[in-house]
């Protein structure tokens, strides 16, 4: 389900609004995922404190959102833009790609909470397609 020009425009417009809060959004999304989908905690057992407001969760949420910001800027070539990150996830982190969908759901949920008026169903479609394409690009190097 590739991104139309309309999708790209919608993603860029929402990101322009959300960028200022991106650290908060990332921390919220990651924190929620660890609580609502406990199986995802298995990737972070070395962190110790996995509660939503812990320092490591907040920091990593910000890291993820920074990477998403890069993806928005490189939306015309997600595979190229995310190539290094794909290698990282494939060979070092070895995160099961099914989890990309889970994190995506939580990012969408937090966006809907923070921007209820802007996150219309039409914007939702475009953002979800974008995150799906990001997940696909991240999975590129797996096998």
């Amino acid at each position, binding site marked *: 389900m590739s991104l139309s020009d309309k999708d790209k425009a919608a993603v860029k417009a929402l990101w322009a609004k959300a960028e200022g809060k991106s650290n908060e959004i990332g921390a919220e999304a990651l*924190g*929620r995922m*660890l*609580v*609502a989908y406990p199986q995802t905690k298995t990737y972070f057992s070395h962190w110790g404190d996995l509660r*939503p407001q812990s320092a490591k969760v907040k920091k990593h949420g910000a890291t993820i959102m920074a990477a998403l910001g890069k993806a928005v800027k490189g939306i015309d070539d997600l595979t190229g833009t995310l190539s290094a990150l794909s290698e990282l996830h494939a060979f070092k982190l070895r995160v099961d790609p099914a989890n990309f969908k889970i994190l995506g*759901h939580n990012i*969408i*949920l937090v966006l*809907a*909470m923070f921007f*209820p008026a802007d*996150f*219309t*169903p*039409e914007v*939702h*479609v475009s953002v*979800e397609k974008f995150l799906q394409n990001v997940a696909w690009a991240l999975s590129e190097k797996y096998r």
Partner: protein
Amino acid sequence: MVEWTDFERATIQEIFSKIDSGVVGPAAISRCLIVYPWTQRYFGSFGNLYNAAAITSNPKVAAHGKVVIAGLEKALKNMDDIKNTYKDLSVLHSEKLRVDPDNFNLLADCLTIVVASQMGQAFTADVQAAFQKFLAVVVASLRKQYH
């Protein structure tokens, strides 16, 4: 049998008492039909689903949203035996409506997002976990009679 903690029972009851069910049901169904357009295949008799505006203002979609919430409220009243409470509904969805059960997860996700945007900060991570567990049990019960 599903084990519910006191927190989960109380939280799920509270969610349904807090949300405007007349709004949430229609909003969740229309979001589902817009975000996952292939789900429109089950609503051929609903008339104009041509674009987002048409779906959002379609009275049959809105009415069906309320039907779905009423179904969830049935589960809410019978939390210790949702599986049996939903036996007939499961047969209906499987044999008459012939809905691919993977679609239940799509609607569940849309419901979660709509409830989250209505409840705002009150929809904490723990509340989200409880609500998603409830919906997971509902979905599993709806899948039960498929064969």
